[in-house]
């Protein structure tokens, strides 16, 4: 529980492209892992063990350190029935919680609407990256999408500060005038004003920020730094979203400075730095980090990488987390596989529900389209 009445925040990190779960959290005690992956298995001596069966990929050292502090919940075998192996479609399913038909509303868009039904704060949800992920999309719910915080907003190409201010003023007037003329013009006006308002507030965040943490110069580290800046500026943001990729490691997964290794060399330290930043600012009890990907990968390697599969691993990290393994680690045995893939044994909407109800204090069923078994990975707030 928090010491003051600060609202809990959720930070979602999307690993785009299908992170290979078996090379992330590794069943190194299972000989089948090495049998199926002659080319891309992580050698047992490189695994950072948590027991004699499982261990972390060596590039997840910082996550392992948080694990040792009991701050990491590993959710094994996470997925959904009839897994789809298309990146786009599977990501869509994770975003909209609609495995059978095409959904139009994102789960976090709905959550933002429920957190702020009258849309009083245009920054309740903020995405860090370009383009709005479907998870945050929901008609009438304003969500800022921030490429670079330092230059975020309208007309970043105007160098002259004064000229830019004039342009922004004019934009505000142009989008504020004459409501009630036409539904589309009104909607554009409201959207433009939300964008302007959000940008005005967000721009103040970096100036207020100071920290001893030095983030690396890669996109995920910088995005997490931006998240920290906005969070510590207390702008009322409850949901932060960012992504990193591309985890689509069909080839060159391991060789040399393999793709998978390189990606985790960016993500894991960034998460570690972010957590240290949270601690430095006394926020670790109020912040929950969810790391997910759209699907796992095939159990067997393809020679130099792994192809699209199902059944993945997700992480939930935070000061309030009850560290440990959740969900069953799927069996690698041939007879237990789902056409060459890991069988998911828990629906991702269960993890979502856990977060929505226990962390954000929302009713989950309407957000995720149904009742799903929750995990005890965080206490009810």
């Amino acid at each position, binding site marked *: 529980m928090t010491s003051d009445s600060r609202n809990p925040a959720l930070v979602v990190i999307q690993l785009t492209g299908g992170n290979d779960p078996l090379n992330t959290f590794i069943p190194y005690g299972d000989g089948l892992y090495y049998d199926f992956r002659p080319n891309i298995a992580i050698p047992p001596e490189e695994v950072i063990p948590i027991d004699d069966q499982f261990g972390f990929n060596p590039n997840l050292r910082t996550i392992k350190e948080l694990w040792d502090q009991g701050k990491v919940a590993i959710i094994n075998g996470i997925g959904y029935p009839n897994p789809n192996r*298309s990146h786009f479609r599977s990501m869509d399913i994770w975003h909209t919680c609609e495995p059978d038909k095409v959904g139009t509303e994102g789960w976090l868009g709905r959550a933002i609407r429920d957190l702020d039904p009258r849309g009083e704060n245009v920054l309740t949800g903020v995405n860090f990256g370009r383009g709005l992920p479907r998870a945050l999309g929901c008609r009438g719910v304003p969500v800022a999408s921030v490429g670079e915080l330092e230059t975020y907003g309208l007309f970043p190409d105007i160098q002259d500060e004064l000229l830019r201010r004039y342009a922004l003023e004019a934009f505000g007037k142009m989008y504020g005038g004459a409501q009630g003329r036409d539904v589309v013009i009104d909607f554009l006006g409201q959207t433009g004003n939300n964008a302007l308002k959000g940008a005005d507030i967000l721009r103040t965040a970096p100036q207020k920020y100071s920290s001893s943490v030095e983030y690396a110069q890669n996109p995920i580290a910088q995005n997490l730094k931006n998240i920290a800046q906005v969070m510590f500026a207390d702008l009322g943001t409850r949901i932060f979203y960012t992504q990193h990729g591309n985890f689509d490691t069909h080839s060159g997964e391991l060789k040399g400075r393999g793709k998978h290794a390189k990606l985790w060399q960016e993500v894991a330290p960034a998460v570690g730095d972010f957590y240290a930043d949270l601690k430095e600012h006394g926020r670790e009890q109020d912040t929950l980090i969810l790391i997910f990907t759209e699907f796992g990968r095939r159990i067997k390697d393809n020679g130099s990488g792994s*192809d699209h599969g199902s059944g993945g691993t997700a992480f939930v990290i935070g000061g309030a987390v009850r560290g440990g393994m959740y969900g069953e680690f799927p069996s690698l045995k041939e007879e237990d596989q789902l056409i060459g893939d890991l069988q998911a044994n828990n629906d991702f909407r269960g993890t979502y529900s856990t977060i929505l109800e226990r962390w954000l204090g929302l009713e989950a069923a309407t957000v995720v389209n149904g009742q799903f078994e929750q995990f005890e990975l965080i206490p009810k707030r």
Partner: protein
Amino acid sequence: MSNRDMALMAHLIRRAGFGATRDELEEYLTKGYETVVEELLHPSDSALRSIPDDVLRRFHQNMGEMRNIDGVACYWMYRMINTRCPLEEKLSLFWHGLFATGNSKLSSPMSLLNQIDTFRRHALGPFATLLIELSKDPAMIMWLDNNDNHKGATNENYGRELLELFSMGIGNYTEQDIKECARAFTGWTVGNAEYNAVRANKDSIWPYSRYAWHFEYRDYDHDDGIKTFLGEQGRFNGEDIIDIIVRQQATAHFICTRLFQYFGADQVDQDGEQVIQEMVNSYFESGYEIRPVLRTLFNSDYFKSEKARFARVKGPVELVIGAMRLAGTYRKPTMNVEQLTKYTGYMGQTIFQPPSVEGWHEGMEWIDSGALVERVNFVGKELSNVKNPGMRQMIDRLASERGGTFSPEELVDRCVDLLGPIPVADDTRASLVEYTARQGVLHLEGHQPGDESEQRVGDLVRLVTATREFQLA
């Protein structure tokens, strides 16, 4: 020529194409409205349609082999910018939205490009031909699993979407019709389908690398039995099914409505319904062809009326292509070509990656705060750059008028005219005037490329393209 004629021509070219510079519009105007409509409707009459293929591909590394989806998407966007037959590309974009096929499942960019070529060839002709070619299109076959549609073991995916999304619309057929439709398309597959399915799913070059996909009809896998489809009975094959589909009232209404919403107005009101009915009549009178349907729309009083003006929210691709055409950029091979597809993606539309087989949600759905910021910034940056050819033309034109001297009001009025004309609301105009009035009267006399006087025009243009009105077509 009157201002009214100019506004109408600009409207036609915005809808039937991606907009045009003032110079181009003046050229169109000398021909007259009906003639231009006919020209647009007959793209194959134009000898040189676009930048030659070899020039485009030679100078763009990622277009060389057409293996990279971004390269392939940019290739098409390049054609949209440079085409002399804009309706051909605009209509292909329509079919791409309606028959939305995505690379996510195919991992075969070249096949998607071939599909667009098929649209180009058949977009304006008999609808039956288009649907038959679509049913034989390898990308579509793989996208909607018709390669898994076998005699005695049907896969209904294609059969269902053909009726629901591609021709008749939901509620105009039964589940039994879907089953029978699927049976008729058994055996319609691609050569080496089994391997292609594995390859598409794995997207790796093993074991046999990539090769071109082609349609294959497998007689032994075709269910030749009697089928009952929409009340008719026979040993129907796919062509017969399509022949029945195109004769349906529902098909005519569905396709004409979609065309109306894409070319006419996002919202269909009562007057719109009337135009759709006229389009439907043209469809039947012509023996189910698309060209007469569009001719009826473009020549209708409704389309020409004020009511239809700016009654559509520009889609991201439409917006970006239109802005690049105004800016005069991307007319030659260009270094940063990938940004075109990246930016439309930020705005919510990536060519060849529709969110689903239902295509993109259009109209107001294009607008959210993130997308709006991207739209305003990208377009504003390109069009405020006074070094771009389109802006140079505009500035030279302004400099030649009124001795190059403009009061703030005059400058705003000229800019919204030359960028459209865009009928901006009074308060929008007032804000633009206030903005540019800070620097007083503009003197372009003796202007030098990129100097302060020119940049003032650029700064105002940036703001004009940021208006709500500019988001509409």
